[in-house]
């Protein structure tokens, strides 16, 4: 016998029980501030199927509050709302309690609520004839339906009949979506402009930097974009949108919404193992990943000067980047706005390979390529740069070809960013260690450049604890507590370094 799943379409609409319930259907004004997924690294892309970030949503609503005790229901809030963060301001009388009703209207919940109640059984036989018959539900939805009909007690959907259940109305307390309601008590009826503020899951944003580079150049054209994504089923029209840079602490774990279990009427009569002594909780399988329909990317003219650039603002120890005009933050979509307009930026392109004394010898290693940018006005920057991906492109003919990709952490003004964008097969380093005696070693390192232009090369000398460099063939600087060999390798040339190492006793 084929199980059927009862559709909610069978339900007749019915009024809710009369009570002082005021429904606010939607906000008059809304602001959405999006925060990055707390555990997503600077280099990791947004996962559009499961947005791990969150948003602060702040709505203004016109509500007519009746005199006496009343319940105000807020509709059209984000489905990912964290109800414990909800804050309602602007009610003169104050809020005595807030409720989030999460018991959802589903075939199974409807069946459970109809226990012991009369329903209509629509029975279709093998010939396709349909007849309706009154019945009373006698079992809970676990397992399958057992109903009482005129004939006696029988199992729905058994013995050649296909049964559908039609209910007489909607029970109280079941909602189509999780719904926030507040209880108010007002002395007299009044119209209020209420501000509702809450955090909600299912948002994310990411910064992307694009650096257009000429080989060997000391400056580049840089643009940056903010991509913001809304994975919620609720969209926000004409919203004041902003994103927050920095790392606020946010430790909520995103809980799966309580999965509405299916109601399956099956007719399997063979014995099943007797129930366990402990009524073990039944875990629902994980929710299917929400499909992201209609991913909409705006701002396609990426390399042209964009008309709109987000406005930076200090927010305590964080940074707020505000989209300067109202915008639609549509459900299941992402959107791009410029973080900064194209500008010329001074930067250094450095090839880097370290000498790890004591590690394996003689092997040639590829240099890693780093972008070095000082975040200051003099070099064309000097603004708080939020963490994000960095793409390096090079103009070849008409196309800007990607030549490297990396990521950058949050960079405050005055900091220097080192962004590793890839490894170079053209620039290599070899090093050798020769033992002179118990306490002295001789190190030689050779760096080669096969490019048709000179490169800046840096190499940290990672020494054993307590070791000292004596008589180096080139002047060594210091970086991160290590001796640093910084040199320019000519086009198609090589440079060498040698020094003695005094080891501790």
């Amino acid at each position, binding site marked *: 016998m084929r199980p059927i799943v009862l559709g909610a379409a069978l339900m007749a609409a019915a009024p809710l029980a009369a009570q002082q319930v005021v429904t606010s259907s939607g906000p008059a004004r809304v602001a959405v501030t999006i925060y990055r997924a707390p555990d997503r690294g600077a280099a990791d892309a947004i996962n559009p199927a499961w947005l791990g970030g969150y948003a602060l949503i702040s709505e203004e609503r016109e509500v007519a509050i009746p005199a006496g005790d009343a319940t105000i229901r807020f509709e059209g809030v984000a489905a990912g709302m964290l109800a414990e963060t909800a804050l309602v301001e602007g009610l003169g009388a104050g809020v005595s309690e807030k409720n989030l009703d999460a018991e959802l209207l589903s075939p199974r919940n409807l069946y459970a609520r109809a226990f012991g109640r009369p329903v209509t059984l629509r029975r279709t036989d093998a010939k396709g004839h349909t007849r309706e018959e009154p019945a009373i539900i*006698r079992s809970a939805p676990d397992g399958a339906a057992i109903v009482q009909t005129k004939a006696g007690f029988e199992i729905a959907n058994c013995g050649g009949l296909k049964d559908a259940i039609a209910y007489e109305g*909607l029970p109280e307390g079941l909602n189509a979506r999780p719904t926030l309601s507040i209880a108010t008590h007002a002395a007299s009826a009044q119209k209020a402009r209420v501000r509702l503020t809450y955090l909600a899951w299912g948002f994310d944003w990411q910064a992307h930097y694009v650096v257009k580079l000429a080989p060997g150049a000391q400056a580049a054209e840089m643009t940056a974009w903010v991509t913001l994504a809304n994975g919620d089923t609720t969209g926000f029209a004409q919203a004041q949108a902003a994103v927050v840079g920095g790392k606020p602490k946010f430790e909520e774990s995103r809980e799966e919404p309580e999965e509405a279990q299916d109601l399956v009427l099956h007719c399997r*009569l063979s014995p099943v193992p007797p129930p366990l002594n402990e009524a073990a909780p039944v875990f629902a399988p994980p929710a299917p990943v929400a499909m992201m329909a209609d991913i909409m990317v705006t701002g396609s003219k990426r390399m042209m000067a964009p008309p709109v650039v987000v406005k930076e603002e200090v*927010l305590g120890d964080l940074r707020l980047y505000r989209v300067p005009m109202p915008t639609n933050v549509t459900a299941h979509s992402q959107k791009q706005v410029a973080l900064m307009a194209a500008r010329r930026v001074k930067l250094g392109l450095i090839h880097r390979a370290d000498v790890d004394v004591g590690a394996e010898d003689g092997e040639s290693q590829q240099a890693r390529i780093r972008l070095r940018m000082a975040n200051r006005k003099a070099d064309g920057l000097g603004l708080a740069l939020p963490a994000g991906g960095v793409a390096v492109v090079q103009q070849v003919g008409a196309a800007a070809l990607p030549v490297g990709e990396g990521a950058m952490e949050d960079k405050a003004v005055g900091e220097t960013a080192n962004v590793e964008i890839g490894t170079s097969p053209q620039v290599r380093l070899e090093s050798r260690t020769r033992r002179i005696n118990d306490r002295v070693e001789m190190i030689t390192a050779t760096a080669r450049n096969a490019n048709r232009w000179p490169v800046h090369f840096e190499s940290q000398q990672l020494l054993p604890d307590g070791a000292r460099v004596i008589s180096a063939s080139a002047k060594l600087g*210091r970086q991160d507590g290590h001796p640093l060999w910084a040199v320019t390798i000519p086009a198609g040339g090589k440079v060498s370094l040698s020094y003695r190492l005094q080891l501790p006793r």
Partner: protein
Amino acid sequence: MMKRRAANWAPLLLGAMTYASGAYAAPVNAQGQVAITIYNNDLALVQDVRQLDLPKGRALTDFADVSAQIRPETVTIAAPGAAVVEQNFDYDLLSPERLVDKGVGQPVTIIRTNRATGVETTERGTILANNNGTLVQIGNRIEVLGDMDARLVFDQLPEGLKARPTLSVTLDAAQGGRRPVTLSYLSRGFSWKADYVAMFDEKAGKLDVQGWVTLNNTSGTTYPAAKLLLVAGAVGDGGGGDGAEQPRFRPTRPAGIVGTQAAAREQVGDFYLYPIANPTTLAQAQQKQVSFLDVKGASATKSYWYRNAWAATSDEAQSFASVINFSNAREGGLGDALPAGTVRVYTRDASGAPQFVGEDNIGHTPMGSTLALKTGEAFDVKIQPTVEKREKIDGAEWERVAQYRITRDGKAETVSVDAPKAYWRTHMAYRLTNARAVPVTVEVVQAGLDRGWHDTRVSAESAKGEMRNADERVWKITIPAQGSVNLTAQIDARY
């Protein structure tokens, strides 16, 4: 146990006619006056006083609408003038399989449908067996139900199968009559915690705090108009229940000071009670919030904190943690004990709208405590620790590190063991930067100084530090606006 016979059908049908006209009437709930005491650790005591009409002598009473997550071993029943004979918690649930199983050997009606004509024929028969297929006997024939295009209709539901887990109690009453029967039990599926909304004004140094109690009911049952009492504590979890995560090793967060003032609240044992004034409906799958604290203008300060593990170099600058410090003392503070929960901090942006700037969890906090909330990492205040140099300090000094006393043939003898005393000197440099428009004071913690020798020394430092304990040295440094400070320290240790 009530037997539901087919003969009972007529009044039910009549009932159906009246129902059919409109929505459901309010669901009939068997609960009486319910009081629920909720603890922090998924535990609640439910007390349910029901007015029951008990017959004289022994009788079985079903208690419907108890929590679906009841712990049946904790049920107690008090009925004046009646004694409890036995209590049963039935979880043998009614399902098609169990219905047929229990129906083996029973007469049933078999309705057979002719596939070609759709005509139904009704016969009486008996279920013979239900083992991987159902066998029925009709007269002298034995057939397999699955091959028959037939369905079974039972005259009655078998005894002992319940639609949902049910508590049933056999009571022996000396006199018949109506009386209050108190049912109390422990249940899972309830929890509560505190949620605080803190509006922080850094310039004014003020903090407005609203406290909300957040209740969750996932017990599977709705309790209309229940009296609620919340206990700020966890019982029976063997300690460690102050509501906040316990650090596994040393505290890796800025520390507060625990207070000793008593709040003006009722206590049970060592726990504070938070009663909720009016009877409240606690619906299944509902999260409910009730206000319990609203304080405006408590003083609060911002500070910065960073803890470096031993000898760690970062090739990139690390953010200081932003910390908000305030007190819940009577004077200048929030003036109440704080139940465990989450504090979410908001700050107004340039347009005056509140924006979320981070959150932190607190444990149950007695009144008079100083709290340090770590709300996130500062964008503009950073530190880059570097191990500049490590060198061995050679010395001719030797030290007796161990001395044993051995008694041999009744004669005590002392054995000394000498080991070379070797120190490593580590030169640490910390580059502190502040891109903010105001000077900030930061707290730098260098940890990992104590590894069991207890003799690590800081032999030189660029600013005066202080040993907070054997493991941690703390420097308080002011970094000028848009400036930087280099802090250096020379640490002599055995490793």
